[in-house]
């Protein structure tokens, strides 16, 4: 049980003050009246006493007695005169008695006014004269007295009326006096009565108010006790410890929960200093020190201490309140050790999970990377195999193998993309880019698939061309590619279109991209999970489409990392619309539109139909590569091309070789033990070795543009992605051979054009004037690969295509069918590259770029030159 300090139950301070004032006023009034009544009563008592005493020797008696005694004297006198008695004693005695009476009247204080009454003066004087005259005779000898009797009797006769008058007048005066006295008394009594009535009224009022206060107090006390009981119940049943302290921080209350938490009984705790009792040693400093000056005391998390000395965390909230005894602080203390433990467990679980996730991601990255290396070997060997003489059946088998290998590589790349996305590496910096061009390029790359299924594929900018924005080209391209290829995959007829529009949300401009199809749609139950990893909706036997199920997961990651959102609206059998919502930031014209990493499958498909078509002079080539299979593949390819090859299995060995021998070309793997490719290149370029200025081609599986930039900056001249393809290898040779045989050592900085991974760009960059119409030896190489019989046939077909395509593209341009024109130009450019028609290829590439930039006018102005170059090319080829 907790005994609350009584102060917790408050009277309203206003109410009690008012009552106090009223009570004090009543008391003061009461005292005042009581004093007044007391004073008056005393006065009345005195007056009563006066009535009782002062004039109370029965005045009338005394006064009438005066006359009586005078008459007695007179009678005695007359008797003596008449001779009825010889004895003078009686006469003398009555005289003495009369004198005595007159003395009393003249000397007694109560008769004072009577004597001084002016009307009476004469009578008193007469009596005094008589006494003075008669007294000597009375006291004289009997004989003398007898002789004087008649004379005295005569005077006594005269005096009778005076004595009578004194009596009468005295009675009148005293009656009047007594009247006025009675009047005064009655007045005083009246006043007392009035005051008494007032007093009684006040008493009644006081009684009334007391009764009221009593009733109010009773109600209040009932309420208080109810409140107290409620509070008590709350305190006793509270799960939190409740501690109440006074100004000095001493405990006034300590509930059951507090006992349970801290281990002290209530009796032990009350009166102790709270901070000393329940706080851990290090917590006994502010801010928990009782600080009454502060307004809001608020909530804290502190370490508390049990009786056993155990320190544990608590949540401590305090409130200040007023009580009649002054300010008190009520603390609610909650033992949160369980919560803290739970939080710690949770945190650990989360950390473990994150660590697991990271381990998984790392595993996936490593796995896919490791898978790429043997794949590299397989595909490379397959490539070499195809270059040998094969039976038609074998060609069929190798095609199947090639396609399967390409598919496997695609999946591995997807997984690798996920891991890269997890580490946030794929997006790169936001750069200015032309969104319309980017979308058209994506659609372009998917055109073949769409056409195969007879689907319409189009871009519909609803708000007009979006133009240049700040964004990640790689990210956007990947997302769009995934969505569009998905749409094509799951749509059997109708159309797939990309829509763009701009909107304003919350004052910010947003870019909206939608990929709409008229396909089978996605069931509502599946819509939520399709953005998860490894989700393939139709996992039955009749799977419509192959895939890792990572495409949408990748898209979601990219969109989210770009600060956007992705979702879909779909209806079964009507189609789906995937939407992407992105922050929109307008940019100046893009300086370049980075190309995506081409999927290996595409590359394979677009690979020129034949085998090696470049056979330059025999070159001395160094391969620095730790992986034996890769080394083998590359070596075989190069030897097949007629070059002599030296191998180094790591960076150090490579640098040693390169310094001691002069190589025409060096292939440098990037990740190697001991000394990696970049470090080796830096060392090579910095040294004075014989091959210090030899062109270096990076071999890498890190297919990121940022990495490419790093490689080039380290002094490499070109980058080849693994797994190696012959076509790409050929392009490297083409590229390198177009440059001065030996790049000057003083300018090892590669230009952008040296980047082989973007063939169009690489081809477009060199000034066309300098380009030969036909690369020397190109046709010979082709003949070697195709066989001398088939070359003329190929040339013939190429010429026919050119003759047909060029006017058609011009016509398409004139009619505004830009996309159609671009397709034709692109197709012809590929063929031109195959035959080494460099000038033609460059011109076509430039036109294609213009078209991609939605600049058909630019493309049209180039058409006359194209026609001229075509004529030259056709002439040159026909001459063979």
């Amino acid at each position: 049980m907790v005994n609350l300090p009584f102060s917790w139950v408050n009277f309203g301070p206003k109410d009690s003050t008012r009552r106090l004032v009223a009570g004090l006023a009543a008391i003061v009034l009461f005292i005042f009246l009581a004093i007044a009544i007391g004073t008056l009563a005393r006065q009345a008592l005195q007056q009563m006493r006066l009535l009782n005493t002062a004039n109370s020797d029965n005045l009338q008696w005394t006064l009438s007695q005066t006359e009586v005694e005078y008459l007695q004297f007179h009678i005695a006198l007359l008797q003596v005169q008449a001779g009825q008695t010889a004895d003078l004693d009686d006469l003398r005695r009555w005289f003495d008695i009369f004198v005595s009476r007159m003395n009393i009247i003249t000397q007694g204080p109560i008769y004072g006014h009577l004597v001084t009454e002016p009307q009476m003066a004469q009578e008193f004087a007469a009596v005094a004269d008589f006494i003075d005259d008669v007294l000597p005779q009375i006291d004289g000898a009997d004989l003398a007295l007898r002789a004087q009797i008649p004379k005295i009797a005569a005077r006594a006769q005269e005096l009778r009326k005076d004595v009578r008058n004194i009596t009468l007048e005295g009675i009148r005066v005293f009656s009047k006096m007594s009247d006025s006295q009675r009047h005064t008394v009655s007045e005083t009594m009246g006043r007392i009565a009035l005051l008494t009535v007032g007093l009684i009224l006040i008493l009644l009022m006081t009684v009334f108010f007391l009764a009221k206060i009593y009733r109010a107090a009773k109600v209040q006390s009932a309420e208080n006790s109810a409140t107290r009981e409620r509070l008590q119940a709350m305190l006793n049943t509270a799960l939190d410890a409740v501690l109440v302290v006074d100004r000095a921080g001493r405990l006034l209350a300590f509930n059951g929960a507090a006992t349970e938490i801290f281990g002290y009984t209530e009796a032990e705790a009350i009166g102790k200093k709270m901070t000393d009792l329940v706080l851990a040693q290090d917590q006994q400093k502010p801010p928990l020190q009782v600080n009454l000056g502060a307004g809001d005391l608020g909530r804290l998390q502190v370490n508390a201490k049990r009786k056993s000395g155990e320190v544990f965390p608590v949540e401590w909230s305090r409130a200040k309140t007023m009580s009649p005894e002054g300010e008190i602080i009520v603390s609610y203390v909650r033992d949160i050790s369980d919560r803290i433990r739970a939080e710690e467990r949770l945190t650990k679980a989360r950390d473990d999970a994150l660590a697991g996730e990271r381990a998984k991601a790392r595993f996936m990255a490593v796995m896919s990377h490791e898978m790429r290396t043997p794949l590299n070997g397989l595909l490379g060997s397959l490539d070499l195999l195809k270059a040998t003489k094969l039976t038609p059946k074998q060609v069929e088998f190798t095609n199947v193998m090639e396609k399967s290998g390409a598919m496997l590589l695609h999946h591995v790349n997807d997984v690798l993309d996920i891991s890269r996305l997890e580490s946030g590496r794929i997006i790169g910096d936001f750069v200015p880019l032309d969104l319309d061009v980017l979308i058209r390029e994506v659609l372009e790359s998917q055109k073949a698939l769409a056409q195969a299924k007879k689907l319409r594929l189009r871009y519909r900018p609803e708000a007009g061309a979006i133009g240049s924005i700040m964004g990640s080209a790689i990210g956007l391209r990947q997302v769009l590619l995934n969505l569009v290829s998905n749409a094509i995959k799951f749509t059997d007829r109708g159309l797939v279109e990309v829509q763009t529009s701009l909107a304003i949300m919350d004052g910010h401009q947003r870019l909206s991209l939608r990929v709409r199809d008229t396909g089978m749609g996605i069931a509502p139950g599946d819509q939520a999970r399709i953005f998860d990893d490894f989700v393939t909706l139709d996992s039955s036997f009749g799977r419509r489409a192959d895939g890792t199920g990572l495409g949408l997961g990748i898209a979601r990651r990219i969109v989210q990392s770009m600060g956007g959102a992705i979702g879909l609206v779909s209806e079964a059998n009507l189609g789906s619309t995937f939407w992407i919502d992105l922050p929109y930031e307008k940019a100046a014209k893009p300086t370049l539109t980075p190309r995506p990493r081409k999927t290996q499958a595409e590359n394979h498909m677009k690979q020129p139909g034949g085998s090696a078509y470049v056979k330059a002079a025999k070159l001395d080539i160094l391969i620095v590569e730790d992986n034996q299979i890769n080394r083998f593949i590359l070596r075989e390819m190069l030897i097949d091309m007629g070059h002599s090859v030296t191998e180094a299995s790591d960076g150090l060995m490579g640098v040693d070789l390169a310094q001691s021998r002069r190589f025409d070309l060096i292939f440098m793997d990037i990740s190697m033990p001991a000394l990696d490719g970049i470090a080796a290149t830096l060392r090579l370029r910095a040294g004075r070795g014989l091959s210090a200025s030899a062109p270096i081609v990076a071999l890498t599986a890190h297919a990121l543009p940022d990495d490419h930039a790093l490689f080039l900056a380290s002094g490499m001249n070109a980058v080849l992605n693994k797994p190696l393809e012959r076509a790409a290898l050929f392009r490297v040779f083409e590229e390198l051979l177009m440059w001065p045989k030996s790049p000057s050592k003083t300018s090892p900085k590669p230009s952008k054009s040296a980047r082989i991974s973007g063939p169009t760009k690489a081809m477009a960059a060199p000034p066309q004037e300098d380009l030969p119409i036909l690369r020397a030896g190109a046709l010979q190489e082709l003949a070697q690969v195709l066989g001398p019989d088939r070359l003329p046939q190929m040339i013939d077909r190429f010429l026919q295509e050119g003759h047909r395509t060029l006017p058609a593209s011009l016509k398409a341009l004139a009619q505004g069918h830009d996309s159609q024109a671009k397709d034709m130009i692109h197709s012809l450019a590929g063929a031109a590259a195959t035959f080494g028609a460099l000038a033609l290829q460059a011109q076509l590439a430039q036109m294609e770029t213009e078209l991609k930039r939605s600049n058909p006018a630019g493309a049209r102005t180039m058409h006359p030159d194209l026609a001229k170059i075509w004529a030259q090319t056709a002439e040159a080829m026909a001459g063979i």
Partner: protein
Amino acid sequence: MKAPIAAFGLVAVILAIWAFTGMNRSPLPPVADAGPLAPATLPKGEVVLTVNQEINGQQQVLAYFDLPALQALPIASFETTTMWTHGLQKFEGVDLKIFLDSLGVAAGTLIATAVNDYRIEIPVAEIEQGGPMIAYHVNGSPMSVRDKGPLWIVYPYDANPKYQTEVVFSRSIWQMNRLEVAP
């Protein structure tokens, strides 16, 4: 409700007891156990006071006093003002209670009569020592008849308000010369 009833009851009981004892106190004067009395003898000097007693319906003189006889009794003295005199007076005389004790009078009513036949009654029970006296000297001098003498029953009026009542004033008999003890 119980408390007021109890209070009323208590008050009623007290009143009843008061009334009853009051009745008891209403005096039936006890018969003086007169006993055989020696016949009064006349003093040598002038008789200033004659004391009578009524026995069996007959007045008998109990004692005669001349001034020396009175003065032989223990002398009482006090100073007081009176409403019949001017200024403070010093009286000397015999304490009335002692006087009556000397006569063996313990009960009944004292009837005093003056020269002018003024007569008053004083219940013996109301006479207390230190109260009234039979004064024969005022300011050291004997009193003449002309000056309320020779004997005057005076009370110490100033000493006690209870001696300032009309009854007391009326009992202050001067020129007294006779006393009678009535049963």
